[in-house]
């Protein structure tokens, strides 16, 4: 239950904003517990994109007619909205990409390949999503750099002492997740950037699992890059954001070439456009930027404090209810967590759990969650995960508990 009165009202209403939730799966009401993989979309977001296509669409930039002007203004406004949302200093620091993965690849290609040399080092943590491992491995392989890995404490928190000890004169970058997509752990980013900056090392923060759940202020965090995907924060697929400090972005070479990222093209030489255009070659995901704008409006209308209170209350409820199930084991007990619970139940394989729960309309995720190094370090072949969104309710937890008892019965 929410601590605040308006929190309670919110919980009763919110569900109805999401058309997809109003359906039966295998004859049972859908209980969607996989928001960390991708959130559902409120009507307001879907309608903003439909409205755009039905009234305002044209290619942006360089259009000299009304529709193109409208589309350009809407696209610019979306960028400004993102800037406010994460409190960037300037809209020039907001680069639109397809998602978290492309954002990290952009940083690895442009910043990485221009700055790193053989023997240099990159620090990541063992709890990273593959998106924040593989691009650095590919970069390391291509320039001859090395990757150092921050281990975890048994609680699921980062081993901060070990982290501080990993720096060397060759450390060139720290790439770390704001919140773990498996354990839910929220990492102490301000401390992490302070330590890195003391060594003059920039920090890239993977905010994919943080932006839907926390107030993010990139200036306060003092991170150098911050990346996230719209589809995990109630926005559309096909768009995400790379935030970078302006001075850093300005010194980085472009990555992709094409229209709009150039000032002038000739066969004897090409000059590049200023930020953010330099990193946005080609026709961008225009409708998707407008959908992201609507998603931020939606989040801020409800209010991040209300969302956080709601999710904290739901997590507390879930911990009590789930903890009562015999054989239920929580994976990851960090103090600060987003609405993600990884667990095992008896010796039941998560995949069997998932199949059985699905027949009760309950959607959970099972496997390595694109975080194989973490799951392997836990000594488990796979884990089950439930994750909450703004629309999740106590009734969802109740259904899950009932479903897990049914799982035990089927496999008894």
């Amino acid at each position, binding site marked *: 239950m929410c601590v605040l009165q308006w929190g309670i009202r919110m919980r009763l209403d919110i569900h109805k904003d999401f058309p997809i939730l109003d359906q039966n799966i*295998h004859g049972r009401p859908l209980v969607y517990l996989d928001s960390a993989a991708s959130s559902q979309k409120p009507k307001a977001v879907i309608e903003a994109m439909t409205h755009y296509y039905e009234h305002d669409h044209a290619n942006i930039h360089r259009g000299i007619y009304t529709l193109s002007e409208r589309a350009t203004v809407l696209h610019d406004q979306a960028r400004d909205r993102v800037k406010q949302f994460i409190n960037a200093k300037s809209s020039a620091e907001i680069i639109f990409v397809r998602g978290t993965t492309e954002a990290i690849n952009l940083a690895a290609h442009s910043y990485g390949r221009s700055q790193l040399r053989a023997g240099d080092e990159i620090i990541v943590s063992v709890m990273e999503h593959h998106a924040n491992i593989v691009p650095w491995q590919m970069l390391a392989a291509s320039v001859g750099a090395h990757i150092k890995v921050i281990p975890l404490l048994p609680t699921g928190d980062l081993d901060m002492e070990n982290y501080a000890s990993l720096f060397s004169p060759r450390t060139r970058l720290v790439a770390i997740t704001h919140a773990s997509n498996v354990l839910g752990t929220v990492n102490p980013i301000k401390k992490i950037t302070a330590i890195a900056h003391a060594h003059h090392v920039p920090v890239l923060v993977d905010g994919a699992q943080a932006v839907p759940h926390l107030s993010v202020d990139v200036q306060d965090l003092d991170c150098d890059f911050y990346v996230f995907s719209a589809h995990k924060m109630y926005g559309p697929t096909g768009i995400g954001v790379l935030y970078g400090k302006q001075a850093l972005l300005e010194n980085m070479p472009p990555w992709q070439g094409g229209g709009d990222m150039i000032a002038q093209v000739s066969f004897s030489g090409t000059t590049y456009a200023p930020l953010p255009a330099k990193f946005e070659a080609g026709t961008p995901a225009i409708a998707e930027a407008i959908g992201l704008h609507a998603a931020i409006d939606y989040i801020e209308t409800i209010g991040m404090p209300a969302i956080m209170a709601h999710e904290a209350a739901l997590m507390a409820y879930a911990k009590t209810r789930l903890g009562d199930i015999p054989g239920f084991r929580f994976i990851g007990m960090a103090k600060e967590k987003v609405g993600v619970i990884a667990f095992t139940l008896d010796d039941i*394989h*998560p*995949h*069997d759990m998932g*199949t*059985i729960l699905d*027949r009760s309309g309950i959607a959970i995720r*099972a*496997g*390595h969650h694109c975080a*194989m190094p973490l*799951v392997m370090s836990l000594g488990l*072949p*796979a884990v089950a995960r439930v994750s909450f969104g703004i629309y999740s309710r106590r009734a969802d937890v109740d259904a899950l508990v009932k479903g897990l008892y*049914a799982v035990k*019965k*089927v*496999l008894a």
Partner: protein
Amino acid sequence: MTAELRELYQSVIIDHGRHPRNFGALANANHHHEGFNPLCGDRILIHAQTQNDRVEKIMFEGSGCAISMASASLMSDLLLKKTRAEIETVFADFHQLITTGHANQDLGKLRVMSGVHEFPLRVKCATLAWHALLAALRDVSGKVTTEDEEPI
């Protein structure tokens, strides 16, 4: 519990899943292969011992869901004395069984797996051990993954 679930998780499957037969290393195996299912992280290492092209013994190691463990366990019991060509025929029928619910020829004990056909996402689980065995017998190096399974 729905009828489909009862059909999928028959007691034979739960039993084989929990107490797999022929689980462990095989000292004088002459064929080995690792199968991997990125969908759920399942991993099965197959050891097979052949003589005059006939399979004398199959053992396996690894971990996985009830379906993949039961499938590996049943398979390791039922394919002895067969050649690779014969096993490929059985696999074709088995594949038909778990995707449609019925097979061209009587598959004996393997019929307990027919419930899989109501769960297309689990076909990869049921075939992991088979892919690994066939790759082992073909002496394919490396690893097979269920990503090679046709999309459902």
